[in-house]
């Protein structure tokens, strides 16, 4: 008994995954090698993020949670680097960074290298500092909110915090004008609402993975987070900060790969209905 030959609808309805993967790979590599320069519109959320930082008065101290893991670096780091650039361009803003992820300090160093911090003339320990990885996730957030000095006595390199001028007069959540969080963890992004916004009303900016955004939207709608953005929107903040980098480059890739997905959905549905109306079963 010979097998029934495959129709065009059969072939289009079940394109081998190797071909799909190959097409996606082409859609990633080509715009990377030959940037197209598609427009990057600025969303309301990213504009609000930018405006919140711009509105910080001189002398403000900002807390940053560098809480993502290595897997999330390609998505979140470009946004973090552009935001640091915006913070460091402003006069007299102090940035205290901590990590609720154990990979945080290493990834922070990587981001600082990418940022080329020397060009801003900022000094470690005077204008910015990293107080290290603090275990415990929400317990760590609550403890740091109450008292940094009671939670940790050294920075991420093990140097006593008392040696750094930036820490003078900075100890609890009440001393911070803004909280910025980059994280790949739901416990972290939601935990900061519970431990800092609810207790101290600290304005909170949250940058998460794109797939985490829907989970965070209720907090933004309730006013507990000023702005929720995804790392995939990094191109927008880079344009606002006028520091184009990995985010702008990846915007072309995002457009082309999303167009491929839409095209595949159209092809899949045409094949499904073509087969159905030509008498074949689907």
């Amino acid at each position: 008994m010979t097998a029934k030959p495959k129709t065009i609808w059969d072939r289009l309805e079940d394109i081998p995954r190797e071909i799909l993967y190959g097409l996606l790979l082409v859609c990633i590599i080509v715009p990377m090698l030959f940037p197209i320069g598609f427009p990057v519109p600025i969303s309301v959320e990213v504009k609000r993020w930018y405006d919140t930082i711009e509105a910080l008065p001189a002398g403000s101290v900002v807390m940053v949670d560098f809480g993502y893991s290595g897997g999330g670096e390609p998505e979140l780091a470009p946004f973090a680097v552009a935001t640091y650039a915006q913070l460091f361009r402003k006069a007299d803003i102090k940035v205290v960074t901590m990590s609720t992820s154990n990979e945080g300090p290493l990834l922070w160093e990587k981001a600082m290298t990418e940022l080329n911090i020397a060009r801003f003339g900022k000094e470690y320990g005077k204008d910015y500092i990293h107080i290290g990885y603090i275990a415990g996730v929400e317990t760590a957030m609550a403890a740091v909110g109450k008292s940094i000095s009671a939670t940790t006595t050294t920075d991420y390199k093990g140097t006593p915090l008392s040696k750094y001028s930036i820490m003078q007069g900075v100890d609890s959540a009440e001393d911070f004008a803004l909280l910025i969080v980059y994280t790949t963890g739901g416990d972290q992004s939601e935990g900061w609402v519970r431990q800092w916004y609810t207790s101290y009303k600290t304005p909170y900016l949250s940058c998460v993975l794109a797939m985490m955004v829907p989970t965070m939207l209720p907090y933004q709608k309730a006013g507990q987070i000023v702005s929720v953005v995804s790392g995939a929107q990094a191109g927008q903040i880079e344009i606002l900060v006028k520091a184009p980098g990995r985010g702008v480059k990846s915007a072309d890739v995002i457009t082309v790969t999303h167009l491929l997905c839409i095209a595949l959905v159209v092809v899949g549905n045409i094949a499904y209905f073509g087969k159905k109306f030509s008498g074949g079963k689907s």
Partner: protein
Amino acid sequence: MSIIMKKSVPIALVFITAVIFLLEYFVLPTELKSTVTMLQNWGIILTAFTLGFGAVNMIMFHGKQVSRRAKGQWPYSLWLLIILVLFTLVGVIMGATSTQYSWLYSSSYFALSATVYSSLGFYMTSGIYRALRAKNAESALLLIVGVIVLARNAPALAAQFPILVNMDSWLSSVPTTSAQRGIMIGAALGAIALGLRTMIGRETGFLGQTTEGEKGG
């Protein structure tokens, strides 16, 4: 070990600790601040300790796999142990913020971790192609919403067709947020119930024991 030490003492400790935290948050924030700070620091230390405990547990488990030459497993276990020892030695001797440790992390774990996560994009593309088909009313709805969100998240399409932004904004603000709120409120009520049951000793899962309900009682 007596039932008092196995059950009563841990439950009493949980009850007292929970009451201290509740009183500090709602009634006596100033008076109990130092006590709560101390307890939180204990929590941080215990969490950090569990990381070390996890490493010891992994050494014991994979050490057994290697010594028994577990079929199809022991080479991976051996590789894991080598990497674990290498990272530990470099971290302890050179320091966890040293150039050597940073290089080791960046060129091995970080690169692999980013690669594995990024490979999800390939599975998602295949999944979108196969799943988004208008086979019935529900899947047609999923298809329409999926295509709108896909198109809106392509920066060039969003710039060309601003209506996509408005549609996505409505989808995010109304159906998505409503559903998420329902889930969150339900989970929060569940967490409160679980907390209260744990405080009064009705929930004994944290002691490694089953509840009466799980026993069928």
